């Protein structure tokens, strides 16, 4: 410290010039290195994959529609849950129905936006079986916070079995309460928005419920898939998730019981 205060202004400026120059060169080298590293990483991440599984994901306010285009059999349509075979690359074709959303499963891949009028693609591979949580990462309106989904990676055989099961129509009601529940579902406006294959309900505004109970969560990751949660959700969706597009359909307690009982059997 003493030394620098004694230096003449000219000498100080010269020293400073050398120091600053060196630092600038170092900066250039570092950012060049980082750019190259970034380039290499991009190459590695986007390396082409052989014969990926194709899954279509369509985002809506505030849930995800997932379609598996028919490989020997009808398309499988589900919601808020993406089952994939572990170890096999998956090509996810992204589209948006209303506003911009963003598909983000932090543990599997970076984000990719779903943009109305444009088609984006994201390729990811789950190396190990497991459950990976995903969430919308682009602000998309009132319930942006509650727009989660689950990626479930399974061994290929389990995935194939699941897929075959999903291709089937909904199971017939097991008992009288369930039969009554299905009847209520068909009489009330539920079918205007929801599809349950094997029944009259063919609406497309809301999630396909054919195999509702096979999913882990309800209302885009908000609630666990239990009969109680189903009843609560049907009874008052606007309190649980304000602003969402599911209206409250007035039901008597018995009707509510029956509908949730029936839905809970749709595995």
């Amino acid at each position, binding site marked *: 410290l003493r030394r*620098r*205060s004694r*230096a003449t*202004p000219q000498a*100080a400026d010269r*020293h*400073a010039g050398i*120091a*600053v120059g060196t*630092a*600038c060169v170092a*900066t*250039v080298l*570092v*950012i060049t290195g*980082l*750019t190259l*590293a*970034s*380039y290499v*990483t*991009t190459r590695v*991440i*986007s390396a082409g994959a052989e014969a990926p599984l194709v899954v279509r994901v369509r985002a809506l*306010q505030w849930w995800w529609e997932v379609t598996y285009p028919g490989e020997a059999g009808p398309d499988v349509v589900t919601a808020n849950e993406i089952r994939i075979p572990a170890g096999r690359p998956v090509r996810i074709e992204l589209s948006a129905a*209303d*506003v*911009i959303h*963003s598909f*983000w499963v*932090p543990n599997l*891949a*970076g*984000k*990719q*936006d779903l*943009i*109305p*009028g*444009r088609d*984006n*693609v994201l390729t990811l591979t789950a190396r190990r079986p497991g459950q990976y*949580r995903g*969430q*919308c*990462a*682009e*602000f*998309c*309106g*009132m*319930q*942006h*916070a*509650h727009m*989660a989904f689950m990626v479930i990676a399974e061994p290929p055989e389990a995935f194939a079995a699941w897929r075959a099961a999903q291709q089937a129509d909904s199971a017939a009601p097991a008992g009288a309460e369930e039969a009554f529940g299905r009847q209520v579902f068909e009489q009330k406006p539920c079918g205007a928005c929801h599809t349950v294959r094997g029944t009259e309900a063919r609406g497309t505004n809301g999630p396909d419920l054919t195999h509702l109970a096979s999913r882990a969560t309800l209302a885009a*990751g*908000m609630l666990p898939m239990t009969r109680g949660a189903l009843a609560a959700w049907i009874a008052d969706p606007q309190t649980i998730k*304000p*602003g969402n597009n599911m209206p409250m359909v007035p039901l008597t307690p018995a009707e509510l019981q029956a509908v949730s009982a029936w839905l809970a059997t749709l595995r």
Partner: protein
Amino acid sequence: MSARIQDDQRDTDLADAPLDAALRRVWDTPRGVWGALATVDHKVIGRRYIATAFVFLAFGGVLALLMRWQLARPESRVLTPDLYNQIFTVHGTSMMFLFAVPVMEAMAVYLVPLMVGTRNIAFPRLNAFSYWMYLVGGILLWGAFLVDMGPDIGWFAYVPLAGPQYGAGKRVDIWAQMITFTEISALAVAVEIVVTVLKQRAPGMSLDRIPLFVWAMLVTSFIIIMAMPAVMVASTALILDRLVGTHFFNPAEGGDVLLWQHLFWFFGHPEVYIIFLPAVGMISSILPTFVRRPIFGYLPLVLAMVSVGILSFGLWVHHMFTTGLPRLGESFFTASSMAIALPSGIQIFCWLATIWYGRPVYRTPFLFILAFFFTFIMGGMTGVMVASVPLDTQLHDSYFVVAHFHYVLVGGAVFPLLGGVYYWFPKFTGRMMSERVGKWVAGLLFAAFNFTFFPMHVLGLLGMPRRVYTYQLDMGWGGLNLFVSLSAVVLAAGFLLFFYDAVRSARHGEPAGDNPWGAATLEWATASPPPSYNFARLPVVRSANPLWEDDGVLPVAGGLRVDRRELLVTTVGGALPEARESSPRPTIWPLWSALATTALLLGSILTPWAVVWGAVPVTIALIGWFWPGGRKEEES
């Protein structure tokens, strides 16, 4: 007395005291309400501008606290999602459009004419107009928010969420018109500053002797001029889509959703530098005073600022890395985003060299500069991280980014700004702010800021997305969020202490004297606070640090008239005297013009025809503005 001032009397004919009296009679703002509404004094308007901007900072801060209250616990129900979305939108919009950009321009409105040694800003009436427009824009946004009509689409207003189909009601229209108000005012100030700096510098203040804050404002003003039209075009297109059914952003009819993002970020990225460059300029201007030596690397600093200005127009794409850009372009975008690290680095190295070879005096403004160094370097490092595409696709729109840009904007701009307020406060008011309280403020803000925002990096890495009104219990983000919220309260306390100190010192602070810090630049060559005419005789500049070279004697230029408002026009490069020019007197017409424009713009939220009938009062007001009133200044 008045009889003795004859026509065509010059400042060289008078002794100091009668000169002061004569100039005051010509330059003082009239007393009373009329004077307050009609003033064109850049110092009055600048003070007003600064105060208003800090009020919006406080309002925006309150909203931040509300958000932190809501987020302190998982699944909290303090705020409804609708209210939360309005709050984060109004917070962002206020901070960007009503605080950060205006406060930097406001500091320039006050300081630039003093620092370049002239008597008033160029186009003082436009300056008055720009303040009124800014005020109305701020009232519009906040008024709408208070009656539950605040925009709820984020400060970036992405379509289609902000479009006619999903942005119901008038909330988005209010946001878009608020843009129009603040952009008009920002553009007007930018024009004034460009012309003031290029043409009104004191004789001898050639380009290599301009104070670096003034250089920064010149570059900033050019960025504003080139960048803000983009958001004007965008918001106009949005209003047209919503109001008269055009299809700019409607993919079903050939429009494009990403067009909005291109236009918005073509403005939005330079916006960051519009906020950051003035702060850089403040540091370069304040630093030499507290290390007792001239800045090291004047020319590299100027060129660094210019190159930041140029680069800022090439970087908008880096806000769109997740929208599905061409894969092959990613390396180009990464490289150009990282390139900005070089000019930023040059600046930091030059400052460090200046400190290293100087003799630092640890007063409050300097403490803020030190706080700046740490936070800004941190923000710069995370900036390099988000510049890398593969990394950014993970970090984008997560709390990591929230942390990053608060480090850049608060650390990079607000800390230097507060340092600047402590530094120039004696010039603004004639009184010092408290050194003791100032050190507490600096320390408290620095610590609380880091406690508040550093954990957000971690939250982002844990996967917490931005703009969520709540999160679920099983995500495990609760503990950190609670910590962040508590720190935010401390941060708010720091700001409160700052406001207290400012208000108290304005009345009871120690009297400052002309040049309390022993600084080198021209604003300290006149009284504190400066008289209405700024300089009795215009200073003459012979070096980059005029007050350090002239041993207590100020070389001045004489010969301007004292019976009317007159200032000096000099050449662009060498600042050689070129002509004398009259400067306008106070007038109420800018206020009428602002009100007429307000009627037009607000009316057009409701019906497109407002543009037609609203044009009539605007035209009348503008004719009133420009029609000569027979004063000496207007007839010359």
